[in-house]
């Protein structure tokens, strides 16, 4: 922003020249600015490539010395000889905790966004937005401490209830009833709170951009407020809400300190999400890095590479979904 101000003083002739494209006079300011912006773009690509190369080289070194199967081994014993480590538990734990977080956060976030844009009086909407921003500003370690010291003891009742009445679903079954809920479920709830602000804020902006004409048309047809939202607001905002959710998912996948403090990690892969155990990529790296040998560090980097790839895939999937939805809303608009 500042760069444009300094290097490109707006000469009066520029709009006309720009309109005529290349035939116009190119001034040094233009050239400097285009060079700078191109440079920033290239720098970003170089940076990404450098990270990818670094991760790949170190990861290849570790995987070649792994005495287990990197994809299917449950244990993470990278510092012992022979080193045996695999990402099965981490992959599962990362995905499950993120899915739980999304299942809780997305409906609530969309609800908050709709409330702020369509239901809340103006006087309430502002402060509410402010409070949501505040949620985003809390450092994740603070969420972690709150989770471990407050949320975990207070979730005991809920988990026992789930175990008792929904235990037949296998998912909510506790194999050792009454254990402290330091499990993937609690981690998921905490992650949901942490990704709530980003999903809410982006959804709110998207919902605000729904053309007034759409809503007025629905109202004119005699639709109630809920019907208006269902028929005109949600279809238009859907692709934006999906991309907001993917941003949230990205944060949930990579969240570290909060998970480390709340989750009781172990090499156990279980469908019972209320049993303590499991782990996530980022939490595993944080808890093993301090005492890792050089091979152990490379092994952690290898797991980081997998997380990198998963995040790429998630972003790619989101783009595909959005691109497809755009055609719909484009046709509608």
């Amino acid at each position, binding site marked *: 922003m500042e760069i444009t101000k300094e290097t490109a003083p707006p000469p009066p002739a520029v709009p006309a020249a720009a309109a005529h494209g290349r035939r116009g006079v190119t001034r040094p300011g233009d050239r400097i600015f285009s060079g700078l912006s191109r440079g920033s773009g290239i720098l970003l690509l170089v940076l990404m490539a450098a990270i990818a190369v670094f991760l790949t080289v170190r990861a290849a070194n570790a995987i070649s010395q792994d005495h287990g199967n990197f994809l299917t081994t449950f244990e*993470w*014993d990278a*510092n*012992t000889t022979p080193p045996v480590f695999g990402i099965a538990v981490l992959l599962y734990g990362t995905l499950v905790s993120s899915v739980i977080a999304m299942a809780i956060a997305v409906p609530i976030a969309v609800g908050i966004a709709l409330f702020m844009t369509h239901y809340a009086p103006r006087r309430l909407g502002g402060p509410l937005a402010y409070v949501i*921003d*505040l949620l*985003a*500003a*809390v*450092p994740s*370690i*603070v969420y972690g401490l709150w989770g*471990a*010291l407050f949320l*975990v*003891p207070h979730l005991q009742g809920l988990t026992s209830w789930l175990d008792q009445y929904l235990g037949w679903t296998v998912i909510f079954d506790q194999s*050792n*009833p*009454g*254990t*402290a809920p*330091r499990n993937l479920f609690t981690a998921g709830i905490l992650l949901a709170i942490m990704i709530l602000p980003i999903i809410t*804020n982006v959804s709110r902006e998207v919902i605000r951009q729904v053309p007034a004409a759409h809503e007025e048309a629905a109202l004119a047809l005699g639709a109630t407020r809920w019907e208006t939202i269902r028929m005109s607001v949600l279809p238009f905002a859907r692709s934006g809400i999906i991309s907001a959710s993917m941003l949230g998912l990205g944060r949930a996948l990579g969240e570290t300190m909060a998970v*480390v*403090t709340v*989750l*009781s*990690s*172990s*090499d*156990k892969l279980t469908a019972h999400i209320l049993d*303590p*155990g499991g782990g996530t990529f980022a939490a595993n790296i*944080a*808890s*093993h*890095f*301090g*005492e*890792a*040998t*050089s091979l*152990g560090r490379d092994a952690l980097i290898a797991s980081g590479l997998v997380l990198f790839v998963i995040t790429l895939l998630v972003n790619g999937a989101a783009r595909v979904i959005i691109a497809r939805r755009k055609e719909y809303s484009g046709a509608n608009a």
Partner: protein
Amino acid sequence: MKLQRKNRLRALSFGAIAVSGALALTACGSDNNSGGNGGGASASANASNIKCDNAKGQLLASGSTAQQNAIGQWSKDFMAACSGVQINYKGVGSGAGIQDFLQGNTAFAGSDSSLKPDEVAQSKKVCKGGKAIDLPMVGGPIAVIYNLDGVDNLTLDAPTLAKIFDSKIKKWNDPAIAKLNPKAKLPNLAIQAYHRTEDSGTTDNFTKYLKAAAPSDWKYSGGKAWQAQGGQSAKGSSGVAAGVKQTNGSIAYDELSYAKGLQMAQLDTGASKPVALTTDSASKAIADAKIVGADGDLSLELNYATKAEGAWPIVLVTYEIACDKGNKADTLPATKAFLKYISSDDAQAGLANQSYAPLPKEIATKVQSAIDGLS
């Protein structure tokens, strides 16, 4: 756009406030941990005994968090006596500390375990004409803490502990526990055994104890990472203590300084009566250790299966790691003077205030003469 930018600014400023708040909090926390309000008194008492020996400049060191509080207090005392010295010890973990030292970034490292052969080989690069040696310095007693309503005295032995932490004993009223505690009213409650989430020297020493004292009940190979299945894990010593505090029916191993306000189990080691953990009983077990390091190295092999009267066998010994020859010339005087001070009887005697175990006389003497020989 404008709105977003404003939000970001706002978020940043809140983040900054929160972070600085957290920093202030952690600073308070570590001060509290170092416990002992006698710190001030001992500082002035020790000041006269500290020999500065031309020490000056900045002394960088890093490593084990287990000895961080001890080093913190010692550096405070030392810097108060020798005004030209700045000591900066960062608790980054033993592995990272050794790495820092081997890359030549620090004057000495603190570690929960002695150097491995390949690390000694690597050290020849930074120690010109010499190699790195282990100097035992701080004993860390490891307590067995538990939280069980209505049970104030609990005695356990190694096989029972091993079975509890391996999820073989699942209830508090198990016959094995009842046999050791005939008087206690043990409830029919699930045992929740806490261990450390992250790799830690405390885990390493606790499992070494289980392996040495109950070989038929603890089959894991050992190491800094927890290998058994089941149980609960929590991050850091304080995380484990917090977990035990909030869970009825829990048990864990943790450093003595974190056991304040929690119940501690006694240990039936095979001595005539069960041993309770104190800094004294831990020192007694360290006295039973053998020096196994060769060629100037003083690494210890603890006798975890000791049956000595009144000796608490679950201890860890943390080392300072420095070059025997070829220490950097600019930091050598300060390194030597500081290490000499912390191995002195006065400094060691102050350890008990902070829930550490002082080195037994015999070992301390050897450490002192090794430090005299550093060059």
